[in-house]
């Protein structure tokens, strides 16, 4: 079961989002574990560019045929880019959640918040 790809360099939330940090820009997505648990994703509900998000608070939702799941921001900041490809093709989240299926890019307010996130070894333990 646990053949999920969990890159060492990413950060993780207990709610199964990942965050990839490039200076103050954080790319956010959901983990392979999350997409597997959801099943076929049919709809993604994301905020618009310019929207402010707060660490640990909801910023959108993902819907599969069988369930709706809220998305929680891994860091606080401003949404600077939304993955428009997901509107046309939400299945990207099933096929490639760690790369092509990214959700949004956030300009992070404070690097300090990264300390509240998990690294790969802890996330692996969480989903075991």
């Amino acid at each position: 079961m646990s053949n999920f790809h969990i890159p060492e360099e990413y950060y993780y939330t207990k709610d199964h989002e990942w965050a990839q940090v490039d200076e103050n820009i954080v790319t956010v997505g959901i983990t392979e574990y999350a997409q597997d648990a959801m099943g076929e994703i049919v709809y993604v509900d994301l905020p618009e560019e310019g929207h402010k998000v707060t660490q640990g608070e909801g910023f959108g939702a993902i819907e599969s045929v069988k369930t709706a799941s809220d998305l929680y921001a891994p860091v606080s900041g401003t949404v600077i880019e939304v993955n428009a490809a997901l509107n046309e093709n939400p299945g990207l989240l099933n096929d490639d959640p760690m790369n092509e299926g990214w959700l949004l890019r956030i300009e992070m307010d404070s690097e300090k918040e990264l300390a509240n996130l998990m690294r790969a070894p802890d996330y692996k333990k969480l989903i075991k």
Partner: protein
Amino acid sequence: MGLPPNPNKGPNLSLSAKIDPDLTGLGFGGKRKPFLTLRGFMSSETPLLTPLFEEHTALGAKMVDFAGWKMPVEYEGLRAEHLHVREVVGLFDVSHMGEIRLRGPKALESLEWLTSNWAGKLEPGQAQYSLLTNAAGGVVDDLIVYCMEKGADYLLCVNASNKDKDLLWIMDHHKGCEVIDESAQWGQIAVQGPKALTLLERLFSSEIRSLPSFHFAPFQFQGAEVLVARTGYTGESGVEIFVPSEYTPALWRELMSRGEDLPLKPIGLGARDTLRTEMKYPLYGNELTDLTNPYSAGLGWVIKPDKKDFMGRAQMLEAKEQGLKQKLVGFKMLDRGIARHSYSLFSFDNQEIGRVTSGTPSPCLNENIGIGYVDVAFSEVGTEFFVDIRGRRIRAQVVKTPFVTPKGA
């Protein structure tokens, strides 16, 4: 992201009922028999495995905890499985369903008191959809009653999530019959879809075809007697087969192998839920609860107050005569969004007018559909209202149900 917090509920399938003993007047301190174990009742317990657990694992199913059982939620994918049942034929493990037997000279008298439909008209080999009702006129469970011997022997097929509750309820309120929990003895396999009878003919005999809907008959399988019933939860043609637990894996494999060319595919609980939603078949815990008036749920056709007295009859009728406040309707989303269980419904002038009980994208219609209770004024086909989806108001419209009309059923 907020994946389902309660592992016992599976991926928010909402297939299982939350059981609140205080709501039900179950009387847990009453006549509960000491030998009863509340299997599947406590979420902390290790899930039960059906006789087909190893088959599912071998087929690569995604397994989830559901109503105390480890069940396959999907194999190749919910949508493909759903469409396959509508177009060809699918195989379902429904061994988690409960089987309760009422036997003895007072079996019928007990059943008439406990259930809303007219069990007295059943002849051996006939089955009936019915409701186990409570003293307030609410619904303890919905079930199918199979008449084994008129007056004296009935098999009840009940929801897995309610089996223990039902058993306690029946033991407390029967009129002096034997009440036997046969759930562990029976596996159950459903075969559903336009080609279901083609497959069954191969295994049993062409007599299967002459078996009318809601009839059942015994057939031999490898020396065991199985009960083949023309019932189902998909709206398609097909059967549900009661098979002794020890023969269940052999029957599953035989069906899989004899149906390979059709092709027959295994179907998970996920598609079982979307298939029943397209038919607007109620699911206990969603459309039905201990507090539901069955008339509101549109189940007047299984309530026979003219034929007999039964538990909660007067209360149910009184509520109906006072005028039902809400009705269960089917709706489709007019704008983008999926209604989910427990979302609120609002009128365009912002009054809360109801609640969603079930909602899903419909694989057959490629539209998002839902079921919910609405104030009677909003229950006419064509009426529009809002579904509150995460704080946004999305338009929906009441439509005729079932949402889908199966071709082969």
